[in-house]
């Protein structure tokens, strides 16, 4: 079954002597792991020094070296017949030809007498949408908690204690609602709080300064957030039930 037709090395000290292939597999493995660790550390160094090319070299340069080590020593390509190397090389060349042929159209968004409007719009949207996306990530973070959402989103105006004294609230007219005021709760129930969070205060005839935040949260999360808002109400003033 095994083909021992190429005894290039006659010495056998117990290290990976396969069909004449003398390879210290463990040594190759250790080198691969070390290269891998360098590629992971690359972006850190690149960031510290502000040199992006360090990241690119440690990422792709090392990938090429690692791939070559695996292909030559683990797949034993360097002992394979030349025919097979040519077949693989042909594949690789055809692949590069295809990519090179397509790339001018994909990487440029305009040229002589043509313009890729959709691609330009996508880049534009992406760059403009950056700020918007950042808020989304902050506002609807990993592992929603009503406290967390209130402190990141609501507290800016309504204050961390829910008393309407948030840093951005001082300039607003009418001022932000004070959830610790018993009078505020006299005519409000949970359903109304949820509506205001989702659709804005204007939806119930209030100030349009209280913007709608429904896009940030699921119904379940809005319900939890409303419960949290109600928890600021003084004893006896909290609305009961839904």
């Amino acid at each position, binding site marked *: 079954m*095994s083909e021992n037709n190429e005894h290039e090395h006659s010495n056998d000290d117990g290290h990976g002597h396969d069909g004449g292939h003398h390879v210290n597999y463990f040594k190759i493995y250790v080198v*691969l792991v070390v290269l891998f660790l360098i590629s*992971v550390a690359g972006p850190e160094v690149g960031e510290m020094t502000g040199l992006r090319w360090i990241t690119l070299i440690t990422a792709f340069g090392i*990938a090429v070296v690692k791939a070559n080590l695996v292909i030559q020593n683990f797949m034993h390509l360097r002992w394979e017949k030349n025919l*097979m190397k040519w077949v693989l090389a042909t594949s690789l060349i055809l692949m590069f030809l295809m*990519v090179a042929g397509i*790339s001018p159209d994909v990487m440029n968004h305009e040229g002589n007498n043509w313009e890729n409007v959709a691609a330009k719009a996508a880049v534009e949207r992406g760059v403009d*949408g950056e700020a918007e996306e950042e808020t989304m990530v902050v506002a609807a973070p990993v592992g929603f908690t009503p406290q967390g959402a209130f402190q990141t989103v609501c507290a800016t105006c309504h204050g961390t204690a829910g008393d309407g004294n948030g840093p951005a609230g001082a300039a607003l007219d009418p001022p932000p609602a004070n959830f610790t005021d018993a009078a505020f709760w006299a005519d409000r129930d949970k359903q109304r709080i949820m509506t205001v969070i989702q659709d804005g205060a204007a939806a119930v005839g209030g100030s349009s300064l209280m913007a709608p935040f429904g896009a940030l949260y699921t119904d379940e999360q809005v319900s939890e957030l409303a419960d949290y808002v109600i928890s600021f109400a003084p004893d006896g003033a909290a609305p009961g039930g839904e």
Partner: protein
Amino acid sequence: MAHAKPLATLRSATGIPTGRLAVWWVLASEVVIFGGLLGVYLMHRIGHPEWADAAAHTQTWIGALNTFVLLTSSFTAVLAHQAAEKGNGKEAAKFLCFTILGAMTFLVVKSFEWYNEISHGYTITANTFWSFYYTAAGLHALHVIAGAIIMGVVAFDAFRGRELHRVELIGIYWHFVDVVWIFLFPLLYIAK
């Protein structure tokens, strides 16, 4: 035993054993499949600077963990080959089982990673970056699954001392799967 085999397995105009020739042919076509996919990803990534925002959300340490797992499984696959060359089928089967264990670990880590991302809204339809992310890593994961299944069959035979040459063949395929990940890792996790 030989008389039961198809003629093609006994002839070799190229001097390369038929099974190994077949595996190399498969890999030559895989080069175009994965190479084309990654090449197209790369040119889009360069043409669309806004992808950097989406790419920033991939979790480097999970990718790194899986890279280490696959490198190690490649090492055990080549040890299986070494054992098979010495005619030690039981030893070869043992190392193949370690390799399958590596494949399983890889898939478990990947499921955890994808579950996390999908539950945060980063789905295959979120934008073109995530489309490529799931297509490339998904196609690769299918190769991991296929490799693990075939390795199971080969290990079963090898343990009984049968068809030991196949240990090398599945090994070559497995190293290729490792090589694909070696390129996917920097593309999706490092140089983002």
